[in-house]
């Protein structure tokens, strides 16, 4: 892949070559801890994300024990949970804390920071041909704000009154009143402080991603030659920049209500034997503000995973992604729509029913671009020459989840049906498949695929296969039966259902779900072993192990700061020239000019001079 054989802007290269030298001499702490190198920052995000994923998963196993085996004696957990275990039972308030923290951790710390933070940072400069992010310093700050936010959230798990426990959506008044639930005391304060830093981190990261993609693309890398990963990260960052500030404002008003006696969300409350002074506020206002972030957040989590999948499916099917432009349009359409559907989370809050019908209409429109994406993935597989790397397996798994979970969203988007299904396990099943598992699979696919670029070594394939099949089957075993439980009407966030005749069934199904959850959780340690083992002892990778077209595979095995030792390669074609008719090899990297491939060029394809 002789990429650097053409004319190039010399001045830029010289400047960077100089830069490059400086960084080699950096002290250890600047190189690996307070690093401004996007690749190191990406790894920091990834490892933090893995740690959070284990904690978040462990919390879910704890409450699944309660739900699957309500009569079991949990005294053996006392060394871990201390006073949260009373008489061998999980404390009901701690149960709510577990659910809340599981949601918060998974949505924000794993699937937002761990996914976007890792792959946007790692891939944007490498795939667009840039030396680093537009601002390495802000990028470093972005990680360390995230770290601070993580530390505070982590500490809140260990305080006496427990972490925030009003659900990850922290609806006031429950989250505003420590009288209502213990977790709304110090735990909630720490949640709000932590999330504030988290939002700062996300904004710093997002601004950097957008600036870098717009300004630092290498020669020839037009927007229509960007890999779909970059398109996905680009749109995701824009969604984040537009929606996270709204969460910050919602949180800020909540802080005012909690600490300074204002009444933004509180009105006419009598609690703990006294009437509060607050009048005129609206708890529904918070829900509008929260879901104005909350719904786009779903796509902030999902779109990067879809981008990663597009890249991996095309590479391993040895085919161009079907409908490249349709893929971009559908991402943009989904991103746009994601801002105007938020109230479908609020059909039964007493909101004006007419608004309900508008939001039903807008919500169901999202099904169209989503369907286009699903069809395009399937069409890409059609008549491919498919290589099943672990990354490819996880990508196919993602498409399956995207379809299954997306379809149930159409049911929930219908306001009349949502009356019965709202806040039941049907909703839990729906979003865990389409947003939780699909995004998680995107993240795993990304790690398997770009591990050789990150660490210069390969992960073990067979362990990857075992990990995939256990997780894939496990996820369906956990979440498919949850639909049944939801259709039967079981409400979510219930510590136990035995109080009700209507919900006093399905104990066998709940047991099955819990066992599947535990097995799936334990299987993740296969991945964690594989990950850390391969960093040190994996086979040394070749330069382009998947025979991929994109730019990152033109860097050295261990790219230093600045990524390319010499000039940045120029780009001449789109990234999906796989199995092009006439070409001997089944891939043509983006750095090969058309002048070198006369045998496979289409009539309109020639180099722009």
């Amino acid at each position, binding site marked *: 892949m002789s990429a650097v054989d053409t004319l190039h802007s010399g001045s830029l290269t010289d400047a960077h070559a100089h830069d490059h030298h400086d960084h080699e001499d950096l002290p250890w702490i600047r190189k690996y801890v307070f690093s401004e190198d996007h690749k190191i920052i990406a790894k920091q995000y990834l490892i933090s994300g893995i740690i959070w994923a284990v904690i978040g998963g462990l919390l879910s196993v704890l409450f699944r024990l309660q739900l699957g085996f309500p009569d079991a004696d949990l005294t053996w957990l006392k060394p871990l949970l201390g006073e949260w275990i009373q008489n061998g039972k999980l404390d009901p308030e701690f149960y709510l804390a577990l659910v809340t923290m599981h949601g918060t951790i998974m949505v924000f710390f794993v699937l937002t920071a761990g996914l976007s933070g890792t792959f946007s940072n790692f891939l944007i400069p490498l795939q667009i041909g840039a030396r680093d992010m537009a601002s390495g310093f802000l990028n470093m700050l972005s990680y360390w704000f995230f770290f601070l936010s993580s530390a505070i959230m982590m500490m809140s798990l260990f305080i006496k009154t427990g972490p925030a426990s009003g659900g990850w959506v922290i609806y006031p*008044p429950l989250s505003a009143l420590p009288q209502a639930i213990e977790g709304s005391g110090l735990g909630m304060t720490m949640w709000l402080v932590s999330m504030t830093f988290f939002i700062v981190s996300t904004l710093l990261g997002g601004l950097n991603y957008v600036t870098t993609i717009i300004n630092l693309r290498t020669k020839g890398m037009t927007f229509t030659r960007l890999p779909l990963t970059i398109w996905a990260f680009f749109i995701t960052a824009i969604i984040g920049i537009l929606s996270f500030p709204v969460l910050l404002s919602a949180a800020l008003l909540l802080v005012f209500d909690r600490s300074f006696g204002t009444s933004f969300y509180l009105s006419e409350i009598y609690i703990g034997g006294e009437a509060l002074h607050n009048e005129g506020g609206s708890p529904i206002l918070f829900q509008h503000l929260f879901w104005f972030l909350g719904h786009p957040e779903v796509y902030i989590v999902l779109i990067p995973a879809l981008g990663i999948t597009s890249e991996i499916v095309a590479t391993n099917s040895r085919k161009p992604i079907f409908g490249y432009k349709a893929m971009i349009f559908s991402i943009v359409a989904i991103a746009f729509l994601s801002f105007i559907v938020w109230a479908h989370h609020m059909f039964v809050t007493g909101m004006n029913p007419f608004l309900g019908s508008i939001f039903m209409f807008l919500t169901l429109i999202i099904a169209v671009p989503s369907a286009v994406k699903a069809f395009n993935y399937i069409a890409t597989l059609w008549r491919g020459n*498919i290589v099943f790397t672990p990354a490819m397996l996880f990508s196919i798994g993602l498409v399956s989840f995207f379809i299954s979970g997306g379809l149930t969203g159409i049911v929930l988007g219908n306001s*009349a049906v949502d009356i*019965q299904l709202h806040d039941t396990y049907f909703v839990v099943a729906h979003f865990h498949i389409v947003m939780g598992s699909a995004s998680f699979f995107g993240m795993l696919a990304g790690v398997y695929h770009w591990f050789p670029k990150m660490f210069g070594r390969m992960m073990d394939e067979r362990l990857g296969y075992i990990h995939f099949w256990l997780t894939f089957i496990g996820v369906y075993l956990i979440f498919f039966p949850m639909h049944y439980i939801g259709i039967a009407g079981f409400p979510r966030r219930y510590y136990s259902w035995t109080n009700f005749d209507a919900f006093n069934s399905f104990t066998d199904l709940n047991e099955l779900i819990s066992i599947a959850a535990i097995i799936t959780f334990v299987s993740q340690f296969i991945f964690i072993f594989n990950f850390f083992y391969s960093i040190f002892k994996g086979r040394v990778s070749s330069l382009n192990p998947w025979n991929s077209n994109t730019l990152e595979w033109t860097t050295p095995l261990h790219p230093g700061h600045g990524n390319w030792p010499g000039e940045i390669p120029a780009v001449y074609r789109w990234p999906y020239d796989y199995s092009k008719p006439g070409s001997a090899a089944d891939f043509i990297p983006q750095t090969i000019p058309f002048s070198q491939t006369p045998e496979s060029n289409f009539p309109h394809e020639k180099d722009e001079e």
Partner: protein
Amino acid sequence: MISVIIIIAIALILSILYLVFRIGVLTNVLNGRYHKHVGIGNTVNSFLFIVVFVLGILAFYLSFESARDKFLPDAASEHGVKTDLLFWVIMSVLTLAFLITNALLYFFPFMYRFKEGNKAYFYPDNHTIERVWTIIPAIVMAGFVVYGYKEWHAITSPAPKGAEVIEVMGKQFAWQVRYPGADGKLGKYHYRKIDAVNEFGIDFNDVNSFDDFLPMELHLPKGKPVLLEIRARDVIHSVFLPHFRVKMDAVPGMPTKFWFTPTISTEEMRAKTNNPNFNYELACTEVCGRGHYAMRYLVVVDELVDYEKWKASQKTWASLNADYVATKAPEALKDKYLKDFLTKPATDTTLVSPVNTDSAAVSKMQASTK
């Protein structure tokens, strides 16, 4: 001691697994398997997609059959029957889509798995196909929107005149209901009037308050529209009547409502489900704290005649708590409504102590207001 043994055992098992893995890697290196671009694993994985798909569909079918009698328990309201139909119509279309797309998604990997010498088909786009599969979902969605809007509009339109008005109030952690009594009008309330006795904060300056009654169960008339006026007094709760397909949040400071028509009485439902102990229930579906999962309230659907009889038999709350109400109501209303029920002279307000209450809570509350 046992835990130490367990830890040692786990450590041993893990190290054995590690050794097996390490030996596997080394034999692969010796056999030169890593030199191949695509190994036997590729074929195995492609077959597994078929196996998992077939077994998965089988499991789907069997589990569905065994669980279906618990799905959507018999709808006991007029709109419930309609939304259930809507649900199943949407669900059948989606199941079809689910089966087709997943079948393709699992069979393509099998059919087009890597074969040495094969070349993939370069097929970057086809506008006709793309247009078709954009338009088809759009048409289906349009159908769902129209159908769904029709039902939603009917459910959320204003309650018919003459609907039975009942107030449902959520608090941590119980539901309470209030009926308007003989005059058909609920008395006013204000949250500052709430105390340990007057949990609804009923305003006894309002003449309509005196015949309101607060039963221990929610009784509903069969065949007559019922309008629930819903509120909460501390945090958000949500009224969920699973058999009636009713759900509406109870929000402090923002009253909400939901109307529906019950169609099956409790007795009829007992016969229908072959369960002599069957009862309708009211649950909470918005997380509200420690006791969220235990906010059960009994619901009874009576034939219209029985319902009227039951209503007539209920004593007004003012009469049951006359001594308390006497301290809150103006003289004129007191003389008119309370004098038969007072146990102490109404003028002696200093001696009045609330009836039927937890006196400790009251004194604590009074202390805190001072």
